[in-house]
C-alpha cells in the first residue's frame, strides 16, 4: 500500500524547500554554520565552484566520508552533486541516503551525450537549465526540481538572470499560444509535447524552479526571487566571503522578505566583503560551466 519514490513524493521535498536558501559546504563545520544561519538544505561537495574554476582538474562527486560527516552534523536535508550522466555516482549517493542529487555542470561531465535517467531512482534530482527547452528535457528525464545554471563560481548574477528571464519569458509566451501551435513550439524547444501542454495550462513548470549560479549578496537573492525563482542556491558566495555566518543569515532573511526593501536594506548592513566576482566576458568560452550538458 505504501509507495516510495513516486514523482509526488520527490517533488514534495522540493516544495518543502521553497522560500529557502541551499548552501554549498565542504566540511561538517561549514554545514553547521549554514544550518545555524537558517539554510533549508546544504549541498555537500569537495571544492566550491570558484575553487574548481581556479584549480582546474577533473571535478568529481564528493568523498563519501565528507558527505557522511556532513549528514551527521546537521538535521536539514543534505544534497550532493554528481557528474552529468554519471549514474553510478548517483547510485552510490542514493545508497548512503543523500536526500537530493544535483546532476551538475559544475563537475566535469562523465557523458557528453546523455543525462541520467532520473526515473530509475527513488531519490529526487535537481538539474540546471539555461532555457525552457533544457528545463523540460530534464523534467522529461525525471528531474523533481529545476535551477538556473547561471555561471557557477563567478560571483556574477548576470547569467542566472539571463537564464531565469529566458525560462519565465518562454513560459509566458506559451500560455498565449493557441493549441494548434503547441506541437511546433515543442519541436522548436526540443521539449516533450506533454510538458509543453502542461506549461500552457498551468503557466508554470511542473516542478519547483530555483535560482543558482552567481548569487553573492542579499540583493542578488531578492532579484532572483522577484524574477520568479522559488528558492536560491548559494555556492561560493557564502564561504568565499569575508564573514560567512553573517552573510548566510542575511541571504536567508532576504529570501523570505524578498519583496520588502526595508528588510533588505536592514539585512544588507555590516556584512564585510562579498566574494570577488568575475566579468563573464573575460572568461574564455571553453571555461564556461553553463555550456556543459544540453
Amino acid at each position, binding site marked *: 500500500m505504501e509507495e516510495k519514490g513516486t514523482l509526488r513524493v520527490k517533488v514534495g521535498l522540493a*516544495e*518543502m524547500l*521553497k*522560500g529557502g536558501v541551499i548552501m554549498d559546504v565542504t566540511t561538517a563545520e561549514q554545514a553547521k554554520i549554514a544550518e545555524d544561519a537558517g539554510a533549508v538544505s546544504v549541498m555537500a561537495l569537495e571544492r566550491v565552484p570558484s575553487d574548481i574554476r581556479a584549480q582546474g582538474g577533473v571535478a568529481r562527486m564528493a568523498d563519501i566520508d565528507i558527505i557522511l560527516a556532513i549528514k551527521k552534523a546537521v538535521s536539514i536535508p543534505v544534497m550532493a552533486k554528481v557528474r552529468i550522466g554519471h549514474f553510478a555516482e548517483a547510485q552510490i549517493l542514493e545508497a548512503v541516503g543523500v536526500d537530493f542529487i544535483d546532476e551538475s555542470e559544475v563537475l566535469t561531465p562523465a557523458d557528453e551525450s546523455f543525462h541520467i535517467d532520473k526515473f530509475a531512482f527513488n531519490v529526487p534530482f535537481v538539474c540546471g537549465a539555461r532555457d525552457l527547452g533544457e528545463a523540460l528535457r530534464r523534467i522529461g528525464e525525471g528531474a523533481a526540481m529545476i535551477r538556473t545554471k547561471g555561471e557557477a563560481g563567478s560571483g556574477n548574477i548576470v547569467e542566472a538572470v539571463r537564464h531565469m528571464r529566458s525560462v519565465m519569458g518562454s513560459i509566458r509566451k506559451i500560455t498565449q499560444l493557441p493549441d494548434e501551435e503547441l506541437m511546433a513550439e515543442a519541436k522548436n524547444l526540443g521539449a516533450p509535447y506533454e510538458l509543453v501542454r502542461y506549461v500552457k495550462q498551468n503557466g508554470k513548470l511542473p516542478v519547483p524552479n530555483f535560482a543558482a549560479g552567481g548569487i553573492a549578496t542579499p540583493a542578488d537573492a531578492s532579484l532572483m526571487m522577484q524574477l520568479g525563482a*522559488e528558492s536560491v542556491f548559494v555556492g561560493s558566495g557564502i564561504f568565499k566571503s569575508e564573514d560567512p555566518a553573517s552573510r548566510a543569515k542575511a541571504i536567508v532573511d532576504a529570501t*523570505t522578505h524578498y519583496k520588502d526593501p526595508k528588510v533588505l536594506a536592514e539585512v544588507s548592513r555590516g556584512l564585510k566583503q562579498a566574494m570577488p566576482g568575475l566579468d563573464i566576458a573575460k572568461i574564455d568560452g571553453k571555461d564556461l560551466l553553463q555550456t556543459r550538458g544540453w
Partner: protein
Amino acid sequence: MERIGVLALQGDFERHIKALEKVGASALEIRKAGDLDETTGLIIPGGESTTVSKLLRRYGLDRAIKERFEAGSLAIYGTCMGVIIVSREVRDYPELVRFGFLDIEVERNSYGPQVESFEAPVRVDAGGGPVVFNAVFIRAPRIVSAGPEVRILARYEDYPVLVSQGLCLGGTFHPELTDDGGIHSLFIESFAKKAKRRPA
C-alpha cells in the same frame, strides 16, 4: 468568506494557499505579525523547522501567534513541520520553537532520509465516519506520544498522524500535495469558524 493565513516564512505555503482557495476560503501569506489581523485561522506549512524557528523569533511572530491562539481568536493547523512547531516536546531538538498547543511529543524526520518518504492511504475519522485520504509523508515527523486531551483523528501503522486539541489541528502528512481539499475544509468548518471574531 473565511480569511485564513498561511505562514510564508519558508516552505510549501503556496500549495496551501491554492488548496484553501479551491475550497472557497480567502488565503493570505503571513510574514510579519501585522499580517495576522483579520484572520481566524493560520496554517503552518511543511518546511524546515530549524529555518522557520529562527525566522519566527527574528520577527516576533512567535509571540503574536501565541497571543492570538491563547485568546481563542485564531485556530491553527500545522502540517509536517507545522505539527512540530505546535507540539509540546520535540525529541533531541530543544532549541526549536514549540508552542505546546498540542500535548504531544514528536520525533523529527522519524522515517529516515528522503528515499524513505512515501504516500499511503489513511482513514481519517473527524466524527462523521471514516474517510480515506491519500497521505503524503515527506521526511515526516512521528507523533510518539499524546496526552489525554488530544483527540486522534487518524493513525498510520501504530502512530497518530492527524490529531486535534481545542482550536489546534496537527498532521504529519501533506494534504496540500494532493487534489483532495477535505482536510482544509475540515480545518475551516470545525476549527477556524469556532475562533472568536475580534472586534473590527
